[in-house]
């Protein structure tokens, strides 16, 4: 017991000192830390409930995916059959009902060629040999293509990877501080932005698909048919200012042909978005505008017609201005969305939590007061119960508080409001080990053992119990960390750190203090 070699003392003090030093940068204001040249030092992150800010969970609209893929495949099939070699394959009665593409081949001689061609349009999924579409023949001339679940899953996976990138670009463009953008599970993205009080703008920005298309307006279409909702072949109808307009399906340009987008003003000094095309886009736009002077085209964003300007003269410069009824802010948001590219998948908000900065500051304040009072109360209580041994336990508890903070800073962990609660609870439980030890020492003294032997037995017997009891406590902590979400996780982090550090400080550190005291004083009796 008394045998505490110098290296052991040095390493225990060393470890605790490092822990305390690591906590220092987190305890001072950022400006002070920078002045002292500690700006680089690891700091504890404050959770959104303490810092204030917005937490948004976005979910991919997976029901939409199947529909989009269906529509895309329908277009692909049409084009492929027309361009088939050696000659076009005439098809008819194409439909996308019942989540399947179905069409019949007019010339039954060409059925096999059509099936082969349809098969080449499908992609393999994974390594199992399945493909993203099943191609089957029914009624001897009809080809039916159905989507496989594997194909949909693969598409979602790829789309989500792209979507995370685009969401990150859009939020970075806002210039907010330290946002977190992370994929969660197969179809979700978590966005956390500290300091944002009004998530409306943020949501509008990240949720916008921003699919931009330029299409020519079909001026030949029969107005009566358009009004009746019937689109001429090769056309689509989209509403514009309350009335449908007929547009050619083939887009002149899409968002992927853009090089730049920024907020600007149009000739009437109204907010607008100035866009620049890449060379392919510029060429296509120049050719189309040259051939269609005097005709209107439509600027379409997310299947909504923004405007239908008439081509006054060929546009050769590779740039254009999009106007609609924008405010400076919405034009800015659109520019950011266009610049970052369109989302490959529609996202909707499924969870949103916003904490005002006032509440966060109040919570930190209350947390600090509660922690301080808890420490004082526990320290006093321990002192009047165990005297000198209580003082040692108290030293351990106070050092423990700093070491937990230091450890959290080192691992860049996040402190949340429930985390503060975990903190206060740790203060209460941290003395448990010392209570166990001290009660055991009392017991051994009552049995008439000598001072040193009582202390030695007290530590030895209690340590086993302490390890066993903390093991189970750690199990619950781990489960919270693995299965928990949000507040449960924040609480578990602090609890786990608290268990680890408190065992070290309350067993090893106090033992050292007691041993040093016993060695120096050699007391005949102890007051415990």
């Amino acid at each position, binding site marked *: 017991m008394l045998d505490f070699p110098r290296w052991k003392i040095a390493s225990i003090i060393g470890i605790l000192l490092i822990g305390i030093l690591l906590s220092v940068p987190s305890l001072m204001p950022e400006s002070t830390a920078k002045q002292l040249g500690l700006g680089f030092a690891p700091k504890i992150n404050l959770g959104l409930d303490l810092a204030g800010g917005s937490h948004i969970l976005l979910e991919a609209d997976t029901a939409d995916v199947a529909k989009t893929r269906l529509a895309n495949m329908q277009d692909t099939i049409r084009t492929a059959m027309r361009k088939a070699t050696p000659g076009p394959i005439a098809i008819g009665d194409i439909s996308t009902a019942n989540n399947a593409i179905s069409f019949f081949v007019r010339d039954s001689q060409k059925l096999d060629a059509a099936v082969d061609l349809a098969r080449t349009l499908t992609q393999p999924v994974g390594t199992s040999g399945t493909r993203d579409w099943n191609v089957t023949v029914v009624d001897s001339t009809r080809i039916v293509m159905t989507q496989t679940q594997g194909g949909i899953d693969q598409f979602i996976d790829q789309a989500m990877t792209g979507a995370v990138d685009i969401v990150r670009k859009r939020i970075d463009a806002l210039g907010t501080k330290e946002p977190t953008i992370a994929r969660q599970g197969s179809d979700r993205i978590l966005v956390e932005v500290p300091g944002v009080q009004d998530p409306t703008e943020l949501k509008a920005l990240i949720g916008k698909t921003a699919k931009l298309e330029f299409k020519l307006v079909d001026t030949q279409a029969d107005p009566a048919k358009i009004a009746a909702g019937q689109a001429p072949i090769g056309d689509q109808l989209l509403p514009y200012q309350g009335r449908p307009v007929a547009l050619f399906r083939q887009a002149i340009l899409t968002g992927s042909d853009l090089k730049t987008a920024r907020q600007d003003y149009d000739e009437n000094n109204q907010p607008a978005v100035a866009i620049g095309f890449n060379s392919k886009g510029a060429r296509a736009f120049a050719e189309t505008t040259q051939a269609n002077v005097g005709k209107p085209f439509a600027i379409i964003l997310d299947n909504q017609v923004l405007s239908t300007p008439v081509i006054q003269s060929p546009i050769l410069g590779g740039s254009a201005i999009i106007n609609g009824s924008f405010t400076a802010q919405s034009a800015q948001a659109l520019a950011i969305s266009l610049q970052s590219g369109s989302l490959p998948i529609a996202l909707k908000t499924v969870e949103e939590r916003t904490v005002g900065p006032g509440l966060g500051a109040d919570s930190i304040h209350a947390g600090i*007061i509660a922690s301080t009072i808890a420490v004082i109360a526990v320290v006093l209580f321990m002192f009047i119960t165990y005297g000198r041994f209580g003082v040692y336990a108290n030293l351990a508890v106070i050092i423990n508080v700093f070491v937990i903070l230091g450890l959290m800073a080192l691992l860049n962990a996040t402190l949340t409001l429930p985390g503060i609660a975990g903190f206060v609870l740790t203060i209460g*439980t941290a003395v448990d080990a010392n209570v166990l030890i001290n009660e055991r020492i009392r017991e051994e003294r009552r049995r008439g053992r000598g001072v040193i032997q009582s202390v030695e037995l007290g530590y030895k017997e209690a340590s086993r119990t302490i390890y066993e009891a903390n093991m189970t406590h750690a199990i*619950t902590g781990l489960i919270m960390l693995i299965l*928990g979400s949000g*507040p449960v996780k924040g609480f578990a982090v602090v609890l786990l750190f608290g268990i680890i550090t408190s065992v070290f400080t309350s067993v090893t550190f106090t033992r050292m203090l007691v041993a040093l005291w016993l060695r120096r004083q050699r007391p005949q009796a102890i007051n415990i």
Partner: protein
Amino acid sequence: MRLLKIVPDNTNIGFVKLRGWAFGLTALLTIAAGVLVGVRGLNFGVDFVGGLSIEARFPGDAPLDDIRTRIDALGVGDAQLQQFGPKNTVSIRLPLPNSTDPAATNALVGKVQAALAPDHVILPFDQVDTVSGKVSGELIWKGVLAVFAAVFCIALFGIVRFEWQFGVATFVSIFHDVLMTLGFFALTRLEFDLNIVAAVLTIIGYSINDKIVIDDRIRENLRKYRQMPLGELIDLSVNETLPRTVMTSLTILLALLSLLLFGGHVLRGFTAAMMLGVVVGTYSSIYVSSSLLITLGLDKSRFRQMTDATDKKKAARARAERIAPKP
């Protein structure tokens, strides 16, 4: 200086003798809690039922009736108002708008804002939470899973490290602790949200901690006093660890009390749950889990064999040291 002793030395309280009464009372309370949860239900927060929750602050006392009238006039569904902690703070809960348009929620928040504006509600709102039904379902499921996994793992730990009777006794008393806590929430109608799940898990952790200490002492005494009847031995173990049990519970309650009084209103339900859990957990450690060992028929002979085996090993080591003494 005379030191404080909360529990006098060498107590000899006959806990085991009282176990019939204790079991009866415990069963009664547990059933009552179960019925209460079943009949009254829990006041689930938006985390678990989905919806919109706004926490608003007013310059003075919040005019509850007036707020209710104004929100009802909006015709956006049944609003639930709740006041907790400071009188100027109100939590307003509304169902989510029945629309797929993401802007609809924002519009709803805006409407509430406009309706309350004449009262000079302090803007921005302190907290706005929106949870869709799908996410809330998952959160419930995850919370339930976490609690069950914790109870299961700990029972397993008890069985592996001790005897199966310890595992089962611990399991039963933890179940009791959880049910009592839920009963408390059903009774008080305090909001039950994700934070409370964290509190319940902590209660489990703490309660286990308590039981392991007593179990450990029982195991130790089983080896020490081989002839002592089990009931007497359990009484002795509980009495021996009683000062520690009381002392630790008191320090934790002290810490939690400071959190309850000074920690801000957001954590009030959380802290209340934990304080109750500490009391219930301590009770069940003393009365339920250890006494249950007798009912379950803990077999003392296995411990005798185990100690015999370790004694033999020790003796062999001592013999070996006698032949070749350590330098």
